[in-house]
């Protein structure tokens, strides 16, 4: 106990003078004690930032270009099978074509660029796959699938006579995951209008029904069907359209009687005032019970020509001649 008090006493004595100072000097002195330990070997530490990397770094791989092989055509035999070298359509390949081709624009006097790395040669389509031996080969291969040409269809006239309807559709062949092509469903049907039998009314009505599907210059009717998803359906639909239009054209509806002169497609002398006038003039002075004179066919034709074809000096000249005949006046 006595020793304890002694110790305390000494501490308190010290504290009376330096207690306050010690309180904060303690915090100051502690780091000083630490550094003192580090600086013992008297050298700066080096911060080596690259140290880690340098150890991990591998050597970059050097890509070595393999030496280009000599072009293939140098090894080609002169009697090789070309169809095996170039079996299908393909972009121009200089190394496999044993021809000294040159193509392209240069300065005047210089030779055109050679076939190697020549974009001009690659751009244009080539027919190296369609050489005569290749075609011969393919024909030979296809021959076994062919049947003999039907008898009685030797000439164009004959087959047009027996098969007046021409049906066209297109098959597409391409490298895609699907073998379907939406355009393959389209069916085009052609028929010459002269192969169908009509009367005057039916023909007029048929032409109105088909509208611009009929080409008056060639006389060919074209029906294109593509509204159904399958070719078979479209074909059936086109045939149905043709049949329906044909039969409908022979039907005379009651309202068709209302067609007036203004609706007519062409001028007809028969149904116009000109005929009445001309008849009245040539029958002038003839008693009503006597037989009527008829207007000459030539006059009727010239009037129709004048109006349907449009007037020109020739048509008007012919009209004049016929009128002079009709009215029996002459220029001495």
């Amino acid at each position: 106990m006595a020793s304890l008090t002694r110790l305390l006493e000494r501490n308190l004595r010290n504290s009376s003078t330096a207690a306050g100072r010690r309180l904060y000097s303690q915090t100051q002195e502690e780091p000083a004690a630490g550094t003192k330990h580090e600086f013992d070997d008297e050298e700066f530490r080096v911060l080596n930032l690259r140290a880690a990397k340098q150890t991990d770094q591998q050597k970059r791989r050097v890509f070595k270009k393999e030496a280009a092989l000599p072009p293939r055509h140098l090894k080609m035999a002169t009697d090789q099978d070309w169809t095996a070298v170039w079996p299908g359509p393909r972009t121009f390949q200089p190394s496999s074509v044993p021809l000294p081709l040159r193509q392209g624009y240069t300065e005047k006097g210089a030779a055109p660029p050679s076939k190697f790395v020549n974009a001009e040669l690659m751009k244009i389509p080539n027919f190296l796959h369609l050489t005569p031996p290749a075609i011969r080969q393919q024909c030979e291969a296809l021959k076994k699938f062919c049947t003999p040409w039907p008898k009685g269809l030797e000439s164009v006239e004959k087959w047009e006579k027996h098969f007046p309807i021409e049906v066209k559709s297109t098959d597409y062949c391409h490298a895609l995951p699907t073998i379907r092509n939406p355009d393959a469903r389209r069916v085009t049907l052609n028929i010459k209008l002269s192969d169908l039998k009509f009367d005057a009314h039916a023909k007029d009505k048929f032409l109105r029904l088909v509208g611009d599907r009929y080409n008056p210059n060639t006389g060919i009717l074209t029906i294109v069907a593509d509204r159904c998803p399958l070719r078979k359906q479209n074909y059936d639909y086109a045939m149905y359209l043709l049949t329906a239009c044909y039969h409908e054209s022979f039907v005379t509806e009651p309202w068709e009687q209302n067609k007036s002169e203004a609706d007519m497609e062409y001028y007809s002398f028969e149904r116009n005032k000109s005929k009445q006038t001309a008849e009245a003039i040539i029958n002038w002075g003839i008693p009503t019970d006597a037989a009527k004179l008829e207007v000459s066919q030539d006059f009727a034709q010239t009037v129709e020509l004048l109006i349907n074809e449009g007037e020109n000096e020739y048509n008007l000249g012919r009209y004049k001649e016929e009128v002079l005949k009709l009215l029996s006046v002459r220029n001495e």
Partner: protein
Amino acid sequence: MLARHSLKLPRLTNMCASFCTATAEAAAEPLYNRPKLAPTDYRTGETNTDLHSKVHEAKFYTIAPEIKKQLFSGGGLPRQYEQQVKTFTETCLMVRPAGLELINYIRNTDFKRPAIRYVLYGDNGVGKTLIMAHALHYGLQNNFVLVHVPWVPNWMKRPKETANAAQEGFIDLPFDAAAWLVHFKTQNTNLLTKLQLKTSKDYVWSKREATPAGSTLLELVEHGIARIKFASETIAALLSELKQHASEDKCKVMVAIDGFNAFFHPETRVFGDHKQRITPDRITLTQPFLDITNYNWTNGVCILTVDKIGMTEGFMESYMPRYLLGKEGFEHLDPFVPVRVDNYSDKEFASCVQYYLDRNWIQKTPEGFDEQLKYLSNKNPYTLMQLTRSL
């Protein structure tokens, strides 16, 4: 530089020399050696149009001043031509092939048959109106009653006055109608006094005014002129009377209508009640003239011209009759005899140039002037007349 000048000089002097000689030659011989025509080659003394034949083709014949006054004082000659006539102090018409053709037709017509309609057509300025004038002269000399309308488009395009007609929806052109009656009277007084044609029925104009049956046509016309209000109706009455008399073989009638296609034009410049343009068939003058150009009468001849100037913009693409008359007009006239009027032939052209020289109308005659005129005018009579105004 000097050398160059010296080189140039001789050439210049050469040119001068050649130019001087040329002018000298021209002065010495004003008419170079072109074929000169004697007056008999381009003029004919034959004033009787009935005797005109192939011999007189391309020759000018003179119309006496009093005849000209009688025929054309109310119009009938183109204005430019009228001025030229005044300048030349004589009315000369060329005997054109189309005119001869027309007169031949009329001469060979059987007047017991329905009236024949002749339609003169041709490009601008080829002489349709003057050929009609020739035909009118023929009509006058052969005792035809002349029903001559100088220019129909005048009625449709620039009427003097418009008034509502008695008929609902129709428009009267009283002044124009009266002017036409005056024209008709000037042309036909002599013949009508001789023929003494009488009206066949009473015409009652109003409560107090009437033209009784049996009065002469001249009285009818004079009433129309005095009472302008009834002029249009008078024309209708007069034309139907004339048609009737001709059919009864009491007279022969020549109908000459210039610019006939105006009757079938889609619209006029005449405004109706609601300030909208009316169609020609709503003008009271149209119907009588369409009636008289119908085929259903005898002892008549109709000479009509179709002219694209008579149309308005948008309807002037062609001068062919079917185009100008349209569907209705063609149906109205068919069958008609189309008579094409062409530009001058070489012979006619030479004759015309010679006539102009004779009249001192062309005074400058350098070498090749007639060839130049030929190419410049394309032998078109009107263009030639315009071109020679300044020569």
